[in-house]
């Protein structure tokens, strides 16, 4: 029972944390680009104003989001010890190191320079202020790299040996250059950027629609934001799919059961087809299904008639290797989460393609149906991120560290009552945070491009004719 509750708790806290993380990564980068463009155009008043106001507008959303990302991240640092003590003892020598390095290399940079960026505009030079947001952006990427190195090691352990009753690190460099890590880092970071691009596009689209309805010309802040989101997003969605495909190939080699479970393929096949969707039973007697012939072999093996291993064969192989047991993850979870993730990706790809075409025709700001679609599409990347992680983690089951340690052996000996208390507690706190965050994000997303919040930093170029240009001395 403690095991089940602990798994739910880890799932809830981590999925919730990862709603905010991609936006932190993506918005930090986008803000750095916006502020750099403003800085480079500092002698061109019209451009400078547009890009500065963009920085101000998106910064509000960034900071609201960042706060939740930070506080939910604190839980991540400690919950391995709290609920997964046996795991922590077993893997500490390998898994603890990236966590410590992440804090030392990434979190200090991120927090210190974010402080400079928010509060220091009138205290440091424009160049240092600009450098600060770039440092924050680099720190978010470093953070992603180190934490993914820990996760990649759980998927595909390298650079270690088993000594007595624990795994010990033998090669730090191997852990830091794990093939799974490189692939998942590139996939996750491009996914973070597409997530942000979809948010920026969607929010800008909402404003452009509103302006269109009231007969106002498209505001340059939102027109430019939408175009920037289109350009960055198009690159990011292609990269996400490319590296995702790369990951699938590694998965077929490193965790074949996960690949088979993603497809619900029971028996090894050559020239395997890709199942698009299935209605009814996944175990081979579907009511209705759509399949793309040979596609799975192409995806997993890059060949038309490549062999894709089936669940039954892998189960037999792993039983022989690791002893009797059930080595299958929960199939309906892996099958459907994989489909939702890939499906969302394909829809985003199409949206981006259409958007690029409209942009080329200079009709992006005026195409109502596309703008409407973009607003609704904000939900897609979040759905894809969530299902992607659920797939990756649930697909590795019953292992917590693939081939080394099972999830059932990883849990703490904490009383069930305590875990119930914290599960309820974390869920309640996170639900409350979600509601507050959603309210605030919605409020500031609806802010006009020229509106001023008292929270804005000093000297932001806002509304030069009103008394709001007075410099607020207090930011919080």
């Amino acid at each position, binding site marked *: 029972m403690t095991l089940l509750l602990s798994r739910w708790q880890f799932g809830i806290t981590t999925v919730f944390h990862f709603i905010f993380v991609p936006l932190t990564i993506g918005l930090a980068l986008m803000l750095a680009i916006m502020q750099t463009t403003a800085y480079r155009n500092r002698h061109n008043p019209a451009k400078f104003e547009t890009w500065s106001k963009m920085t101000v507008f998106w910064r509000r959303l960034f900071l609201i989001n960042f706060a939740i990302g930070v506080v939910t991240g604190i839980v991540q640092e400690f919950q391995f010890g*709290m609920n997964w003590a046996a795991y922590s003892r077993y893997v500490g020598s390998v898994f603890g*190191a990236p966590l410590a390095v992440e804090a030392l290399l990434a979190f200090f940079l991120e927090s210190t320079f974010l402080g400079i960026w928010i509060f220091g505009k009138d205290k440091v030079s424009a160049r240092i202020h600009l450098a600060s947001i770039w440092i924050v952006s680099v720190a978010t990427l470093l953070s992603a790299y180190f934490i993914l190195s820990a996760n990649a090691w759980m998927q595909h352990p390298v650079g270690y040996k088993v000594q007595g009753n624990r795994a010990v690190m033998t090669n730090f460099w191997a852990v830091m250059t794990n093939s799974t890590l490189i692939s998942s880092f590139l996939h996750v970071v491009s996914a973070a950027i597409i997530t942000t691009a979809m948010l920026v596009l969607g929010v800008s689209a909402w404003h452009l629609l509103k302006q269109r309805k009231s007969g106002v010309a498209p505001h340059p802040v939102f027109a430019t934001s939408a175009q920037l989101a289109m350009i960055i997003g198009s690159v990011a969605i292609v990269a996400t799919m490319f590296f995702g495909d790369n990951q699938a190939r590694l998965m077929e080699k490193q965790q074949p059961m996960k690949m088979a479970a993603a497809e619900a393929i029971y028996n090894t096949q050559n020239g395997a087809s890709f199942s698009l969707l299935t209605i009814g039973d996944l175990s081979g007697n579907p009511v209705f299904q759509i399949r793309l012939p040979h596609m799975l072999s192409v995806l997993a093996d890059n060949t038309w008639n490549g062999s894709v291993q089936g669940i039954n064969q892998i189960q037999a192989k792993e039983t022989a290797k690791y002893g009797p047991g059930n080595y299958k993850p929960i199939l309906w979870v892996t099958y459907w989460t994989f489909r939702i993730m890939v499906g969302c990706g394909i829809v985003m790809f199409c949206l981006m393609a259409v958007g690029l075409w409209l942009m080329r025709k200079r009709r992006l700001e005026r195409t109502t149906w596309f703008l409407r679609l973009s607003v609704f599409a904000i939900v897609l990347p979040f759905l894809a991120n969530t299902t992607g992680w659920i797939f990756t983690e649930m697909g590795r089951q019953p292992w917590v560290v693939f081939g080394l340690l099972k999830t059932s052996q990883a849990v703490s000996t904490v009383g069930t009552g305590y875990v119930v208390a914290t599960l309820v507690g974390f869920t309640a706190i996170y639900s409350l945070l979600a509601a507050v965050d959603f309210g605030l994000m919605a409020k500031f997303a609806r802010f006009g491009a020229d509106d001023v919040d008292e929270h804005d930093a000093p000297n932001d170029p806002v509304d030069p004719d009103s008394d709001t240009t007075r410099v*607020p001395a207090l930011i919080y």
Partner: protein
Amino acid sequence: MYTVIASASPSYTGLEIFWFLVIAVLWSMYFLLEGFDFGIGMLLPFLSKDDLDRRVLINTIGPVWDGNEVWLLTAGGATFAAFPNWYATLFSGFYLPLFLILAALIFRGVAFEFRAKRAFPAWRSAWDKAIFWGSVIPSLLWGVAFANILRGVPIGPNESYLGSFFNLLNPYALLGGVTTLLLFALHGAVFASLKTTDAMQERARKAAKGLAPAAAAALLGFLTWTYLNAHHAHNTGIVPPLVPVLAIAAVALVGWLLREKLEGWAFLATAMGVVGLVATIFLNLYPRVMVSSISKTYDLTIGNASSAPYTLKVMTIVALIFTPLVLVYQGWSYWVFRARVKRPPQIHRASDPSETEQSSLTVSAVEPD
């Protein structure tokens, strides 16, 4: 001055000893820095007369509190990497208190960012409560936790924690909690007197003068008890009497330093109090990292809790390169924000088009310094 009670076991490696030291330093830095921002949070309702006052106080720590908290994350990560058994036993054993600390830090962290985002009073006062309790609860519980680590908790074979939440509530540990609570409140009051001006500074000084004797008394009581405990109950730790004596003396002097308007020195004194407290605990602890109240053989030590030598070596290289760098840029950021936060004159304005509760909204104007 240093009294070695028992000869240190020769079986510990240099790296294990070094990482014990590193973790002691990380916790010292954490309490030294977050200590005063906890103090600001605790004093928020007492030092302020209106919302603008509260904003002044929060802005004294605005640019730095998050960086201060990273010392905690680093301490957590370093413990995980260097002493996995310590990390596992401590956080699974102290499960509920840690949950309460995390919950408090969550609310407190978002409160700083969110409170100014809406103008209506109920919103702000709710987040002010989050900042207050979010500062009080960790300040108290960290003291309780460290006192228990040293006092001993039921740890059985295989480094497993056999107690419950209630084992952690004992007079010694509670005194430890009260000590950190008072010490951080004092540390925050002195910090406020350093970082504010005029009426706010006066109130902060007054609060610090009132808190100083109480904090000194708690520290005296707790460290005396610790010293006696270390002498009689356990026969291992190194007990250098100079460290706790200096800590107590420094805190006892704060009232006088403030009367002489030596705020900088007063801050140094409370800092010495905080670091001295952490140092005393760790010096008593060494070479153990968690004491078992069941049997000495179940103690977690830097030997049986430690990670593989290779991991310690890699981590040492990383720490030696990057810790000085962190200290430099974090120090630089304190220098950037060295100016006092001044209460701006109130100007009413309508600024936020989406809020209807405009009348109470005040915003500051430029004050040429």
